[in-house]
Each structure stands twice: as C-alpha cells, then as structure tokens.
C-alpha cells in the first residue's frame, strides 16, 4: 500500500502559492448574517405569495440575489426549500409562461436549483423527480443548453 500513500498527501498544504476559492470568484458583498436574514425574509414572502397564487412573483423573489459561496449553508437550505415548494405547487400548464417571464440571470439560477433539487432526491427531502425533470425540460426549451453550461461552469455555487 505504501506506494499509494503519496496520493493522500494534501499538496495544497505544502504549496505556498495555492489557488483559493476566493481567487476564482468574488464573495457575496452582503455579510453572512445579512444573507441569512435576507433568505429568511424571502422565504416567508414566498409562502405568502404562493398562498395568494402568485407563482411568478414568488419565483422572481427567490431567484433574485440568491445566497452563494462558502459559510452560508443555512441560507442556502432555506432558499432551496422555498424554491422546491414553488416548483411543487405550480400547475404543469403554467410553467412555460412563467419561465418566459424570467430574466436570463434568473433562468440560470433556476437551472442551478433544479440540479440541486435532483441531487437532493432520496436524501429525505420531499421532491419528486418527475416535477424537476418537467421543469428542466421546459427550461432547456426556453433558455437553451447555454443555460446548463453556465450552471456547470459557475463557481458561485448556490
């Protein structure tokens, strides 16, 4: 086994000139606390909007300035949950119209959350794969494959 031991060495710890995540993207200008309170506020706003049937408005709210980066896991979870709540409570016939009303930036964010939702399937969250796949198919139709490429490329993980 000893000949494989070198593979477990953390070379970043030995390298002085190591590339950090912060070199690759700018951290959120809001502080961690602000991000969290922002997410909490949006989450309750989304609940209100859904109960009034304003899905487009709810999606718009949750997809503007979503939390990203390191150290904001709680805010990320909150945002993800309220987003999945929106996706679950939308009628399939309304999806196309809602997607078209979103901006390009928001479409990219939505795609990222759809993938995040797919990753969470089978981990105790109440997401249905068919709902996510339906949103994914329709979003790709509207925003193109470029939207998927942007999600895969972006290091500001939502």
């Amino acid at each position, binding site marked *: 086994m000893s000949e494989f031991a070198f593979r477990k060495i953390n070379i970043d710890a030995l390298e002085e000139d190591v*590339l950090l995540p912060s*070199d*690759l*993207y700018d951290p959120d200008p809001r502080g961690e606390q602000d991000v969290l309170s922002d997410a909490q506020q949006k989450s309750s706003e989304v609940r209100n909007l859904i109960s009034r049937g304003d899905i487009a408005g709810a999606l718009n709210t949750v997809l503007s300035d979503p939390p990203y980066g390191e150290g904001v896991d709680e805010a990320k979870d909150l945002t993800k949950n309220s987003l999945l709540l929106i996706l679950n409570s939308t009628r399939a016939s309304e999806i196309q119209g809602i997607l078209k009303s979103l901006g*390009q930036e928001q479409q*990219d964010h939505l795609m990222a959350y759809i993938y995040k939702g797919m990753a969470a399937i089978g981990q105790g969250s109440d997401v249905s794969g068919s709902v996510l796949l339906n949103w994914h198919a329709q979003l*790709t*139709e*509207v*925003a*193109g*494959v*470029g*939207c998927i*490429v*942007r999600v895969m*490329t*972006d*290091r*500001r993980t939502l």
Partner: protein
Amino acid sequence: MSSPEIFQLSLGPLTGIAFSPDRSQVCVCPNTNEAQIYTRNGEQWDLTDTLAEHDKLITAIAWGPNTNRIVTCSQDRNAYVWTQTEQGWKPALVILKINRAATCVKWSPAENKFAVGSGSRIIAICHFDEENNWWTAKQIKKPLRSTILSLDWHPNNYLLAAGTADGKVYVYSGYIKGLEAKPEATIWGDRLPTGAVLAEFKSPNGGWVHDVAFSPSGDILAFVAHDSSLNVIYAAGPNEPPAAHIVVKLPSLPFTSLTFVSESSIVAAGHDCQPILFTGSESGWSISHSLDDPTSSSKPLTPSATGVRSGGVGRLGNNEAFNMFKAADSKGQRGTPQPGAAPSSAGLTPVGQDGQLLTIHQNTITHVEPYEWNQNGEVSKIFTTGRDGRLVLWPVSAGKGLSGRMAGLQV
C-alpha cells in the same frame, strides 16, 4: 454568395494552424509532435514539408505574414522559430524558461517579437538575441493565477491581451526596453513599462476564457468564455473604467474562438460546429446569422479529401449498422434523428438522418481567423478548423446582415 470551400486535412483534430503570407501554403499540426506544411494544388493540398523538432504535441502555430517565419509551441515546454532556407525549414531555439506546457503563440504585428502563453502562469514575450543567435523571453507573471489559454496583440505592437483559465482577461503592456521605440499613450493606458496591467475583465459566470481578440482599430476588446458568453469591451481612456462591457449570453454551447471582421462585426465559433456572425455597436451586440446554414441543401457536404484514406475500417467501412454504432460511440448519437431537423430553440446542433451533423464541421471548431481582405480592408473570407480535421474557407458578408443574405437568394 459563393459557398464555402472544404478540405479534409486530417482524420483527427487539427491542434494548430497558420497560413503562409500569400495563402498558397498552410502549416497544420494533426494532433502530433510534428507540424506539416501543405501547398495548394488546385482543389487539393499536397504535403510538402514536415517540421519535426518537438517531442510532444504542438499546441499552436503562428506564421508571420511579413517576415515569413513560423513559430510553433508545444507541450514539451519549448517553442521554435522556423526560417525557410534553401535546405528547407530550419528551427531556431527559443529560451522560454517555463516549466509547464506552452499553450498559445502569436506574432506581434511588427513581427519583431512574439508572445507565448503557458500552463506555468507565465506569458513569455520573446525577441531575437543576436549575440547568442537564439530567441530570449521577458516573462510576465503578475497577477496571473492560472493557465493562459489565449493571447492577442493590439495593432500598435505594444499591448497584449491574455485570457486565462480562471475566467479573467488582462490587457498588458508588451513593450520591451532596448528593442523598440517608447510607445505612445493609447486609449487603454499611458504608462507602459513591460508587464504593466492596463485593464482587467472577468467572464460573467466565471467560465474560463477560450479566446480574446482586439478589433482592427484596437479600441475594442472581445472575448469568449466557457459560460457560453461573448463579451465586448469598449475602452474609454487611460485609467478610466471601460465605456461599455457588453455581455451576450448565448442559448447555445460555448464558443472556443473568435475574430473581428470589422469594428461592428465578429465571427465566433466553437462547440456548436458552426461559425456565427455577430453585429453590434457600443449600445449592444446580437447574433446576425450563422455562416453555415444547415437548412439549405445546396451546399456540398462531401469534403475534398487530401491524402487521406476514404471509408472506414476495412470492409466495415460502408456498413450501416457499424456506422451507427461508431456514431453513437464517437459522437454520442443514438436512435434515428428526424430528417432535416431545423435547429431547435434549445440551441442544439441539428443532426441528419445518417447520424452526421448537418453543419459542415462535424466536431468542435477550435480556430477562426481572417483569410482574405477586400479593398476596404474589411475581412471578406475567414477560415475555420476543428477537431474533425477539416479546414473550411467561408465567405463573410460583413455588416450587411440579413439584407446581404437576401441578396444572395434566388427567388
């Protein structure tokens, strides 16, 4: 509008390409450690010379249009400058002083120096050292944090743009003291010591930058990144933020290469296998049209082969079932696609019934460059090469947009 000329130069990818000054010869690397020079013979290209000196894959080739010198750079961390003599092409050593692969190379407009980008976070600006009879490099290291993937010189011979793998684009001063006259102030900056960073830009979603290009005047900088974006930047003046940074987010796959056709039009191409013409100004840019229209059926899809065996492997070459599995294996295509499928809104490249793409290029385009200019100095033809081993010469109707296309239609 005349149709594009298609040549199959290799079965595998072409990793580097450069045309001779008079366009009668082309130097390509067929994904090996050797560069081949082909000479045009009517509709064919004949292999006339082989440049063999590198140990590993050649990553880029540049051919100086005025001095007729070729520079090649390779993963073996070396570059060679090739000069034509009566005994053939002779290499001259370049002292790059890099410890990772060289990735890209460009002659400066005056051809007294060239720049090499590398995986060791260094840009080497090389000039000839008469005393030792070799090329030496001045290195730019700051503030580079990753591999340099693309370079382009400003027409004034001093400024250099570099695109990197961490999604940043820098404009440097490439002035070398003692070699050339002191540069005059430009719209990008007025103080120009070697290696000074005059401007820094970022791709919108952090995608690595595939290619950068200055416009013919040098006042506009454009780059394409892996987040499917085309960025156009208008400089405002020294030490000032740019007048405009226009981002076009595409519905299609990312572009890997771009070139300015005029101050108001750009051709970009990449993973979608077709060159796309963009037009715009300081107020905004948008897609004009694709130079390769997959819906038209009149274009010749069979390339003229050049020294390449035809058919596939042995007797299986013409077997339909074999070709289907081969396409599924090499291109990820399954099932029977719809005949003549138009490009969908999802920005996917259309696939024909035989599993071939309906575009001329059958794989990613990796290189776009001007081929011919008209009397007004505008680009009238461009060439593209790709991973399918094809070289294609495309006519460009610059700036005319839709009306230019309609003129070519027969009603």
